[in-house]
């Protein structure tokens, strides 16, 4: 049984692609055969974050149009043998994708014995975002502790509950909230919405909290998803989130202000 997880948010720039790449790597690392698909036709970026941008030959639209098989288009990750990337088309316009085409590609991938398909949604609530979520079993809604992101997330939660195949069949897409770019010290100062605030407003518990950390940008620069940086707090927090998605009960980390010792107070850290 292949499980389809959409990573979505409504608002752009909150960390959907970073999250998709890290979740996919984390699931593969946990032994699950995983494919991660870029749904952002025209604005391909997942390949860059995954570090496989120079190996894209065929893309999503090629498979939809029958110009390539799914086997030809899936790019095998160099780090995990059970991890594959399907790139978005860079040249075609977004009307190239439709519900039937997407369903065919997802079925083709499922037929290859995958455990998980991670769908990296484009920003917005247009066709691409709609297609990314339509066939999902679960949704990871990426949200920043910031007003516009929280509002857009609520909108997306509404769409997940009405415009998906599950919803049309009277079922529910399992929703997870992933809070990213979280700064415990700013929360303590009263400058930033807290975990409890966001959970309270959206009526949903978080499945993970990723702290704001410089390693996220460094990982993007290098094309190595941040979850593979197991020293960084963001990487460890993503690993925890993957464990929770797989059903493990792991406590939240890096969500409170680290108390500085005497020396680091004086000399900085």
């Amino acid at each position: 049984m292949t499980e389809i997880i959409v990573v979505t948010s409504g608002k752009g720039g909150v960390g959907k692609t970073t999250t998709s790449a890290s979740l996919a790597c984390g699931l593969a690392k946990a032994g699950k055969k995983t494919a991660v698909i870029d749904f952002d036709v025209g604005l391909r970026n997942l390949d860059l974050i995954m570090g496989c941008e120079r190996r894209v030959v065929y893309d999503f639209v090629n498979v939809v149009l029958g110009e390539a098989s799914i086997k030809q288009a899936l790019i095998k990750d160099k780090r995990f043998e059970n991890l594959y990337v399907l790139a978005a088309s860079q040249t075609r316009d977004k009307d190239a994708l439709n519900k039937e085409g997407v369903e065919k590609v997802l079925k083709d991938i499922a037929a290859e014995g995958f455990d998980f398909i991670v769908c990296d949604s484009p920003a917005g609530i247009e066709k691409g975002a709609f297609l990314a979520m339509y066939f999902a079993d679960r949704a990871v809604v990426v949200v920043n502790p910031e007003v516009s992101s929280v509002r857009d997330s609520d909108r997306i939660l509404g769409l997940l509950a009405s415009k998906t195949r599950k919803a049309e069949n009277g079922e529910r897409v399992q929703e997870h909230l992933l809070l990213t770019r979280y700064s415990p010290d700013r929360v303590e100062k009263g400058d930033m919405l807290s975990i409890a605030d966001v959970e309270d407003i959206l009526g949903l518990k978080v499945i993970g909290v990723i702290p704001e950390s410089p390693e996220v940008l460094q990982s993007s620069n290098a094309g190595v998803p941040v979850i593979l940086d197991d020293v960084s707090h963001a990487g460890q927090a993503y690993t925890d989130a993957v464990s929770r998605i797989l059903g493990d009960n792991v406590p939240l980390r890096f969500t409170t202000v680290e108390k500085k010792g005497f020396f680091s107070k004086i000399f900085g850290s």
Partner: protein
Amino acid sequence: MGIFDFLSTRNKNTASVAKDRLRILIQQERSMRGAPDYLPLLQRELLEVIRKYVNVDVDAVKVDLIKDGDNEVLDISVALPEKAAAANG
């Protein structure tokens, strides 16, 4: 804590302001969710018609879709102004 911390007090707790604003907004948006797309236009056109006869405020007309079991009720309410204010209508 420094002795000049009081200078930055005007920025204190913008997070709680954010939370309050979001709570109200999201509650309002959720109540509109699933409502037909024509509601905002209907509301605007109703307002224009009513304004031909009575000088009402922009927010005087409220159009809500209320779900009552299996029935949906279109609830339209118009707040009329005090007599004096409407005299030129």
